[in-house]
């Protein structure tokens, strides 16, 4: 076992994993994190805590992870390279390891121009792939990026993000291969709405044998209104929301029910795709729907390994 985390054990046992996400508050109340944690506790193998997502300042991911751990939820520490240089990244990895956090997701981060501090300096000392490589070296060789020895273990399951829909399409799989060779043990993809394109991407992934070298979890974003569907289609770079989906939400008598239906349909389709080892649900501002989705998708109870 690389980390001994629950997520690793579920994935290594060959079972279909189910992870969730929790955005920390723009404040200091522990309850804001723990309430979401309680909702996701029984239906998720692990829960990601986002890191200043969309470049909006929130309680740090590390703190959020500890708050989840306190109530018995296994956290996934999301870390972006936008806000920290290699010194701070390594220091935080050591700190997280010391605090018992065992899963890390290495990301670039949305550009600071989008966020609520657009005049800030973006750090970008190393990129996300170099970050993955760095954590792997810390874990497997007990070495800092400068070659010096680290005392103690750094047992992390290393994750990365992948976007089957971003351009250039043909290059995405090469980039995924780089992430895997750099050391990504698991991948969480961007939200999947266009299933056929995702299937096409997975075929390219399998052609390279990547599905056997890393665990791919398909991303899922439950939509609760046509406004949300439209916003994501038009304003969120990296998301591919087909027009038919927007129309379907527009015509729905009960948009929330339709949203749940779409999720469940997508999950069933993803279960059939060879190489998909689980689902990562990003229920933005709708965390309370996740237990129901897990239940109705036949993913309950979660395995105890």
């Amino acid at each position: 076992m690389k980390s001994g985390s629950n997520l690793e054990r579920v994935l290594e046992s060959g079972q279909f994993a189910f992870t969730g996400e929790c955005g920390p508050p723009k404040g200091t109340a522990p309850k804001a994190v723990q309430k979401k944690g309680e909702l996701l506790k029984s239906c998720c193998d692990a829960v990601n805590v986002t890191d200043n997502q969309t470049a909006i300042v929130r309680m740090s991911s590390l703190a959020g992870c500890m708050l989840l751990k306190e109530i018995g939820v296994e956290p996934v520490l999301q870390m972006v390279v936008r806000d920290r240089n290699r010194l701070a990244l390594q220091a935080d990895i050591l700190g997280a390891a010391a605090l018992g956090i065992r899963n890390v997701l290495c990301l670039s981060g949305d550009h600071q121009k989008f966020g609520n501090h657009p005049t800030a300096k973006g750090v970008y000392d190393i990129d996300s792939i170099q970050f993955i490589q760095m954590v792997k070296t810390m874990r497997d060789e007990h070495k800092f990026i400068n070659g010096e020895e680290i005392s103690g273990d750094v047992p992390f399951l290393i994750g990365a993000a992948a976007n089957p829909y971003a351009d250039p399409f043909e290059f995405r799989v090469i980039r995924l291969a780089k992430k895997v060779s750099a050391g990504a043990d698991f991948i969480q993809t961007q939200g999947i709405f266009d299933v056929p394109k995702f299937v096409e991407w997975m075929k390219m992934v399998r052609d390279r044998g990547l599905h056997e070298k890393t665990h791919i979890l398909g991303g899922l974003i439950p939509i609760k209104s046509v406004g949300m569907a439209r916003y994501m289609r038009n304003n969120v770079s990296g998301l591919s929301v087909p027009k038919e989906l927007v129309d379907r939400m527009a015509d729905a008598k009960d948009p929330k029910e339709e949203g749940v239906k779409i999720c469940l349909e997508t999950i069933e389709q993803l279960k059939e795709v060879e190489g998909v080892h689980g689902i990562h649900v990003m229920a933005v501002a709708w965390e309370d729907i996740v237990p129901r989705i897990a239940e109705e998708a036949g993913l309950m109870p979660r395995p105890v390994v």
Partner: protein
Amino acid sequence: MIVAERKPMEEILAMTEEFDRILVLGCKGCTTVCCAGGSREVEELATLIRMNRKQKGKTVDTLEASTELQCEPESVTPVLERLANQYDVVLSMACGAGVQTVVKVLPDLRVLPALNTNFIGVAEEHGVWTEVCLACGNCILGRTGGICPVTRCSKQLLNGPCGGSMNGKCEISKDVDCAWQLIIDRLKELGELELLEEVFPVKDWSAGWHGGPQKIVREDLKS
């Protein structure tokens, strides 16, 4: 070339308000080429300052001149000497290097920047300039098809693109090309796409400004 832009008039008028004899000093180098501080722009700025002062019922004496390369003391000194004692302040229309050279040559007078120095760049077409080099001190253009990801990728990725690249454009704006899309396209054309399959190692930022303000010494050239 170094690309700069004139500061907002408001700011320039405020900083020159207290002076009655202003030398507006242009540069025949970079700021002429990017139409920010050449002799035409010197005439324009000096005229606007005089017109503004006239409106307020006051007067101002402006001198208009340009140096060859304002970053070279040898270009600056003769111009300033020729006009000595005729001005109380120099309003420089050169880049930051030019302004600081004038200060060195004239330590006893106020020197004000009329421009904001923006970047090292090129003209895409006349009237449109883009940033292409960040002077990182560690050039990798040979490995990226001649396109600089340190400057042109908004996140300075060396193993790009990120997930925000859409239709060849960067996530920050539809007006910004995704540098990694450009690199991939170019390397594909050159048949060198496998160059990108290796993980590009972390960058040594200390070769540039991050290692401290840079200095180059050529012993073979020093007198």
